Structure formats: structure tokens, C-alpha cells
């Protein structure tokens, strides 16, 4: 039968089959995500049913519980405060530094070693930073303060920011600044008026990645936060007690925490791969 089909029809058939395969695969792959979403709309009885209930009357009970839970709001506020501060401080320090490191005219001698130091922040596991900082913050009684966690998050964000921004600055041709300098701009003006605006999208992408990192960070928060500074990832823990896990509240919190990240990812779609590979792959 198929031999009677024209070239075009055969091509279309192939396309449809391929689409079906991808659709099936996506469905299977995304099952855990769908399951999470379903759990967040289940009532307490249904979430503990066995065999598991695939269809139950949806309820907003879990979301209402999360929202009316004053702790959840505190965690969100903590997460926001920490992520925004870490991200801002990180960018203020990283952007100018990255600019210098991207221009051979300004680079100091031995910038190779600086770059190696920057890259090593991505390689060294977080646990290595945790020990000295924990001892240090404990001595200064800074455990369970926002500032200590902001500093910890900076250990990742700063290096990442410098590396990423450098890759963006390298894409901006030096000729532009040079002509501005000849026209009488100071070095600083050439940076702030010419290069900075051009680097806008890169700065946005880097900032969003930094925010995302801080928002989801777990290890530092686990070790350094207490009742006053718990962040959202630790807030998820609140639904877990020794006797049982409140699956509804837990999944609803997870879904709510996902929202800002999804929105951000929509914004940086173009810089996504670049951000994930520290500028090594330009999408």
C-alpha cells in the first residue's frame, strides 16, 4: 500500500509518526511533573490512597493552606530579600571587573591567573566553602542572619557573573569604544555610555541566572539559616514531620516556588544555553 503513496505523502506520514513518538515520549518524561501538579490539587485523603488516585476532584485547599500559612510568606520574603541582594551586589561587582578582563587594552598583567581563580569557583564544590564560613560566622554570631547567606551565595554568583559578563563583553567590538575615546570620552564614559547599554541583554540574563541560583540554593541555607532566615527550599521541609509528610502542602509550595523561575526563563530564552554553560556555548 505504502508504495502507492507519493513522495509528499510519505514525507507527511513520516512527520506525523515522528510527532507522535515525540508526544508520547514527552508525556512519559513529564509524568513526575504532572504527578506533582496533580498532588497539589488533591485533598489529604486522596493523596494517601493506594492504589494511587489518578482522577480526584481537584481542590484548592493546599494552595489556600500554603498562602494562609504565615511562615510561607516569611520564607518567600526571605528568599526574595536574599536572592535580590545577592544578585545585585554580585552584578555591581562583576560587571565592571568583567569589562576590564575582556579588553586587552585594560587587562592587568597576570589576568590569566585571575581568570583561573574565577573559573575555579565553579569547580570547587560548595561544601568546601561551607566549612570555613561556618566556623567564621559562628565566631561572629552571624549564623541565622540574612547577610551571612547573601555572602555565601555570592561565593557562586560573583565568579559566575564575572565569567558570563566577560563572554558578553567580548562580543562587543572594541572599535566602538575606541572611536568614542578619540572623540574625547573618558575611559569611564566610553564604558558607561557605549558598552554598558549594549551589554543590557547579557546583564539581564546573568542577573536572572544568579537570582535563580540563589532562589533554589539548598546546602548553604540548610547549614546557615535558622528560624529567622529560612528560605523557600527549606520551607518545603516544613511539610515534613517525623510522623508524616503533608504531600499536598509540599507540592503546592513547590509549584508556587516554580512560578517566578518559569517567568524568568521565558525572558532569557535566548541566553539560556549560554548561561548554563558559562558562555562556552553561544545559543
Amino acid at each position, binding site marked *: 500500500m505504502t508504495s502507492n503513496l507519493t513522495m509528499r505523502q510519505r514525507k507527511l506520514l513520516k512527520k506525523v509518526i515522528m510527532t507522535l513518538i*515525540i508526544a508520547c515520549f514527552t508525556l512519559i518524561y513529564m509524568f513526575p511533573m504532572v504527578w506533582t501538579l496533580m498532588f497539589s490539587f488533591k485533598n489529604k485523603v486522596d493523596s494517601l490512597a493506594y492504589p494511587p488516585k489518578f482522577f480526584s476532584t481537584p481542590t484548592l485547599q493546599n494552595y489556600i493552606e500554603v498562602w494562609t500559612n504565615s511562615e510561607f510568606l516569611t520564607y518567600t520574603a526571605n528568599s526574595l530579600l536574599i536572592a535580590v541582594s545577592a544578585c545585585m551586589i554580585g552584578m555591581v561587582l562583576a560587571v565592571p571587573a568583567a569589562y576590564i578582563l575582556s579588553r586587552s587594552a585594560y587587562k592587568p598583567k597576570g589576568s590569566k591567573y585571575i581568570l583561573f581563580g574565577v573559573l575555579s569557583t565553579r569547580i570547587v564544590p560548595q561544601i568546601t566553602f561551607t566549612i570555613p564560613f561556618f566556623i567564621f560566622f559562628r565566631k561572629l554570631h552571624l549564623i541565622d542572619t540574612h547577610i551571612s547567606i547573601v555572602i555565601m551565595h555570592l561565593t557562586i554568583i560573583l565568579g559566575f557573573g564575572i565569567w558570563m559578563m566577560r563572554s558578553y563583553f567580548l562580543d562587543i567590538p572594541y572599535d566602538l569604544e575606541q572611536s568614542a575615546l578619540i572623540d574625547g570620552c573618558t575611559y569611564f564614559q566610553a564604558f558607561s555610555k557605549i558598552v554598558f547599554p549594549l551589554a543590557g541583554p547579557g546583564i539581564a540574563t546573568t542577573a536572572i541566572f544568579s537570582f535563580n541560583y540563589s532562589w533554589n540554593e539548598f546546602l548553604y541555607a540548610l547549614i546557615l539559616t535558622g528560624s529567622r532566615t529560612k528560605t523557600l527550599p527549606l520551607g518545603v521541609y516544613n511539610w515534613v514531620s517525623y510522623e508524616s509528610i503533608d504531600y499536598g502542602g509540599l507540592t503546592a509550595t513547590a509549584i508556587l516556588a516554580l512560578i517566578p523561575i518559569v517567568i524568568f526563563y521565558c525572558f532569557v530564552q535566548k541566553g539560556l544555553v549560554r548561561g548554563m*554553560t*558559562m558562555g562556552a556555548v553561544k545559543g
Partner: protein
Amino acid sequence: MKKNKKADAVGLRDRQIARFRWTMLGPGIFVLFLINILPIADTIYTSLFDYYLPMPQDQRFVGIGNYLSLFTEPRFLQSLGRTLVFMLMVVTTETILGFGIALMLTSNAFGTKLFRGILILPIMLTPIAAAFMWRIMYSPTLGVLNYFLEVLGIEPQKWIYGAEQALPSIAVVVTWCKTPFMVMVFYTGLLSVSDEIIEAATIDGASALDILWRIKLPLIKPVFFVAILFQTIDTAKEFDYTQILTRGGPGSASETLSIFTYLNSFGFLKMGYGSASAIILSVFIFVIASLIIKAGGIDFDK
């Protein structure tokens, strides 16, 4: 006279550049040194001491003693081996799966953009939430995975609660969460292979498999290695998922090096011992990362 003036001007320019350089670069590098380099040095320093946190006065210098006792402790050696096995399991699966998905998404099927948008969601999920979700699914009594097995007539499994299954079960979760990263990177790489090359090859009579092996793969080799590099680093460091899913258990069946380090420093409060272990983990990752950078000819400085 004229020459002197010129030299003065150059000197002035140099001074201006130097001032500009250090006002811009100084603060960033200073903070980086303070919060990144110094702590690493401090961890190395601490690793030379026998330091039990509640009793700082009993601190005593032991040289490389901590390292020596680590390398004679079977539990440490096992966790080191487990980290390597875990890394290999996760990165291999992710690479194969990620490349497969990327190929599907670059085929001419309908709605590939939509599928791509959906398939990327797992990386955005807070690792903690994803790990808890899988814990629910892995539950031996209430979990949906064992329910599926039951429907298929297969014996229920212990998953993360079984000594032999714990590590692979964690690997499944990490793979699930991180494969989208591989997909995105490979996808970008595959899109950069120009249609003309492929068309030319097709005209020359190359089969689809030839095009994949002889043209697409070699062309995206650098991208391939970058993806593998980052995933390898992250998997070797991996802490969040393991901590939520098993805490290294049952017993120490899924205890990787980062969990071992965490347990020794913040569980047993043996800061010196923990520091030594952290340094070994760092060196371990450094060595593997450099090998991958060399093998793939990755050039970050471009």
C-alpha cells in the same frame, strides 16, 4: 623637548588607564579573593588540624594525618568509589538520552518548539521539591512506581530504601532533572550545523546514519564536551538530591563524597577531617574537569 612631552603624555595615559583599571576591577577581585580564594586556603589549613568544633581549645596540628586516616578509612574509600560510579551512571545516561531527545527535537516533526518548552521544565524545579516528589513516587507502600510495576505484574521494588537500589534510584532522579540541560545544549549545537552541509552530503548519497556519525557529531564535538564537563562537575558535587532522598542511606549505601564530607563536618563536627575530605573532593573534581577540558579541546578564553 618634544620627545619628553610625548613621553609625559604616554605616562599620563598609562596612569589614567591604571586608575580606571583598578577602580573597575579592584572591588570585584578583592571580594572574590576574600570570599572564594581565602576560604579555600582556610579549608586547606583547617584540614591539617584535628579540630572538633565543640572543643576548639583542643585543636591540634596533625599535618597530613587527616588525609592519611581518610585513605585508610574504608567508608571514605567506598564513598569516593561511589561518587565515581554515580558520576559515570548519571553523565552517560544523560548524554545518550539528551542527545536522543535533541535529535528528535531537531527533526522535522510538528510542534518541536512546544515540546522543547515542556521538556525543559524539570531543570527549573527547585531540586528539593523535585527530590521530595520522587520520594513520594518511590514510596514502597504508597508510591505510584510500585503501583505501575504491580499493574505490569512485576514484583514491587524497594527503590531508595534498598541498599543496592538506592544509588541508581538517586541517579534516575538526577538524570531526570538534569537531562533537559543536555538537551538544550545539544539542541543549540545541532541547530548550528548548517543545512547546506547536510544537503550536500545527502546529494553525495550519505545515509541518515552517516550524516549523524560523520558530520553532525564531529561538528558539535566542542559543544558535546562542554555539556559533559558541566554535568560531570555538578554530578560529582551533587548533594541536594541525595540528602533529601536517602541522606546517604540505607546505612551508607548511597553515601557519596559530598554527603560523607557534610556528615563528618556538620554531623560529627570533625572540622579538620571534614575539611580534608572536602579538599580531596575538590581535587578529584579538578582532575576530572581538566581531563575533560583537555580531551574536548575546550577553550573558554574566546
